[in-house]
Each structure stands twice: as structure tokens, then as C-alpha cells.
């Protein structure tokens, strides 16, 4: 079956990716044939994940350790 040869789906091909590619206005008006009264919300990056260097990792570890210390004996 197409896409299952390695068990990995190509996430770039999902519906949201498609809408981003053709544009929300074109997608709603030309493909769906509806007129949407509002534009979609603008927002920053919604993805999950981060590529950190050692200094950044240390910074987050320090922040986390302070919370662990605060909750010592309560978790």
C-alpha cells in the first residue's frame, strides 16, 4: 500500500498542510465555495519541540530543578 512501505506517513500531505499551501482564502472560496466572514486567527508557532544547545538545556534544567525542590515530598 502506498505510504506504508516503511510505516511512515508523509505529514506534509495532510489536509492542514494542503490548506496552508493553497491559502485559506482560495481553499474556502474556490474549492469549498463558501464565503467566510472572518479571517483565520493569526498566531505564532504552534509546533512542539525544540533544538537546544547545552547552555539552553542547563537553563531549563535549573528552572525545572527549582520546581522539583519546591514540590519535594509532595509528589
Amino acid at each position, binding site marked *: 500500500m502506498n505510504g506504508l512501505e516503511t510505516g511512515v506517513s508523509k505529514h506534509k500531505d495532510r489536509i492542514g498542510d494542503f490548506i496552508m499551501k493553497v491559502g485559506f482564502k482560495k481553499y474556502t472560496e474556490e474549492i469549498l465555495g463558501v464565503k467566510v466572514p472572518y479571517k483565520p486567527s493569526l498566531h505564532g508557532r504552534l*509546533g512542539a519541540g525544540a533544538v537546544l544547545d547545552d547552555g539552553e538545556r542547563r537553563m531549563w534544567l535549573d*528552572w525545572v530543578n527549582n520546581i522539583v525542590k519546591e514540590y519535594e515530598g509532595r509528589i
Partner: protein
Amino acid sequence: MSAPNPAERLKKVLPVPYTKFLPDILKRNLGRWVDRKFHGYGIIEHISETGERVFTVKVGTPPNFRFATSTLREFAKVADELGVGALRFTRNGNIEILADSLDKALKIREVVEKMGYPVGGWGPTIWSINSCTAFLTCTTAVVDAPSITKALYDALKPYFTGEITLPAKLRINVSGCPSSCGGLTSDINLVGHYGDAPTYDPERIKLCLPKSAKALEAGHVPEVAEVCPTNAIKVYGKQDGSVGLDIIRSKCIACGRCRDVCDWIDFDSSKAGVAVLLGGKASNTGRGPLPSVQVIPWVPAVPPEYREIVAVVKKIIDEWRRDAKQGERIGDWLMRIGYEEFYRRLNIPVTKWNQPPRFGGEFGIRQFFQTA
């Protein structure tokens, strides 16, 4: 052969009417349920216009809803002997057992609690902690989501049973990798990732690339680059006709999909952790549907207790409980106080990975309707 007329489909009768296997009390009252009443945080009474009543008992289940068949038989026995012979699995992995009297529902609660399963999860409580399957059946897992879920359930059980109540409904999702199969639209979402870009052996990586740059000229994109969701892997033809590979660190989100298709891509698993995303909800209540926002890019995932993750989740819940208004979910609360204020209160460093979002307009179904 001519194509079938689509209108014929409307006349098609499903092989098995879905009501065939319903218990009689549900068949008799189809479409007649008019009211409901809560009995604690784990039992709902459904009232029919015929005067009949059904009581649903909601039971929390193990992470990733994993059961031995013998346990399932035990649950089925409870549903047969004390209930109306029916139980259902919710999409969030709880079990609901139906009974026809409050006495029987209370008895079911007593029996399943003795079996070791909590009853609760309605009203201002934790409704579920959803988890992907991670290493058991998945090839892309970075952290063991069900183990993290287990640690969270152990620490947060009173919030599920209602011994400690919350300002509003709380759902938590745990995903083993950024594919986020555990879900990403809940109030609190934990997503496993490697925390750093991958490296590769420059010689062995050739096994994952075309032998000749001519293949690239013909439009072939090697799978190791094709699977990257952020286009952080570039392959290029060299002057000598061979193929090279670059990983663009600034684009990489450390999801690990490249490693999944190429054994010679390597991540340092000692740097694996979870990102914390807050405020997602699909409900149209409050501020309406909201996306989740990454507020903490990395918390180390340290088995078996995952104390760091549990402490951070508890801290977030405690601050929400302290400040939120009744009925205000985490997303609504964050929109009211502002992400900057939330960061200030928890002393969260602001980096390029957790910039406060700038929302404008409406999400989900609301963007299709004019407001009054």
C-alpha cells in the same frame, strides 16, 4: 460496466442496525432522554421521559488503555451482574458501565475501586490523561508516554476522583514524539522530543542517499529528507557526482522522523525530554476553541518516576487552581491573564521556542459565524 448511481446508496440498509445489540432499557428510551443528574464526580443519572433511568459509572483505566483479557472479563462480569450488560470505552480511554439503579451504580463503584480502578472524571476534575502507545507498537517514540502517564495518574488521582476539585474540566495528553498521537488539543499537552538536532555518520549516511546526483536532477527526493516535517534536511548533488546531506539546525524540531527511515541518523537519547503545551480545547465554551501553545520547550524525561515532569504539571495546575474563576479552563484563563503574566508568575524564561502567542480572530467553528 456503468458506474453505480449514487442515489442507490441512500436505499442501502446497513448489514447490522446499530441498535441490535443495545440493552433493552436503552432501546426502549431511544431519543427520550430529557435530563441528567450527577451523583459525585463518577456517576451520571440519565432520566427518560418514560420515567426510566440509567446510571453511568465512569472508570479510569491504565495508561494507553492497556488491559489483560482477564481484566476485561472481570469488567464484563461486573457489567453483567450489576449493570445492564453493557459497557463502553470512551474515546479518551475511560470505561463507562451502565446500571439501572443508583444502588447498583454505587455497588459497581465499590467493586471497581476494590479492583484498583478509580471512579470519577466528570465535572471540575481531570477527565482523562490520554497517552499514545509509544514504544509498545510505535516506531517513532522518543519518550515512553504511557510511563509518564502512569506517573501523572499516581500523583494526580485525587483530581480525577474529585477528592480535590479544579476550576473546570482538565484534560491532559501525553505523546511520545512530535507526531502527537496522544493528542495536542487538550488543556495540558506533553510531547516527547530529542531536544537536539541529529547527527550522522558521513560515510554510512550514503546508504540512505541516492548513489548519484543524477537521481536528484530527475526529481527524486530521498525518504530521509521527504519525511522531515520542517524541511530541515537538504540533500544536494556534489561536484564529483555524489550526493551530500545537510541538517539545518535552525529548522529542526528534533522529532526523529528522519531516524525512523535511516539507521545512520543518530540522536542523543540522553537529551530527550518533553515540551509542555498549554491551553488547547475543542469546546465552544468560554473563549471558544483554542490551540495549544508551547510554553516550556524542554523538561527532562527521567524514568521511572518522571519527577521533573510531574512537578512542572503540578505547578501549572496549582497556579491555575489558585487564580482561575469557576468554569475557566486553562486556555481561557491564559487568554485572560496573558501568556506574559503566566511566564512571570512561574518565572519561565522566554526564548524563541516559547514566544507568547499573538492571537487575533477566532478559532475552530467560531471563525465561520458572525457574532451578534
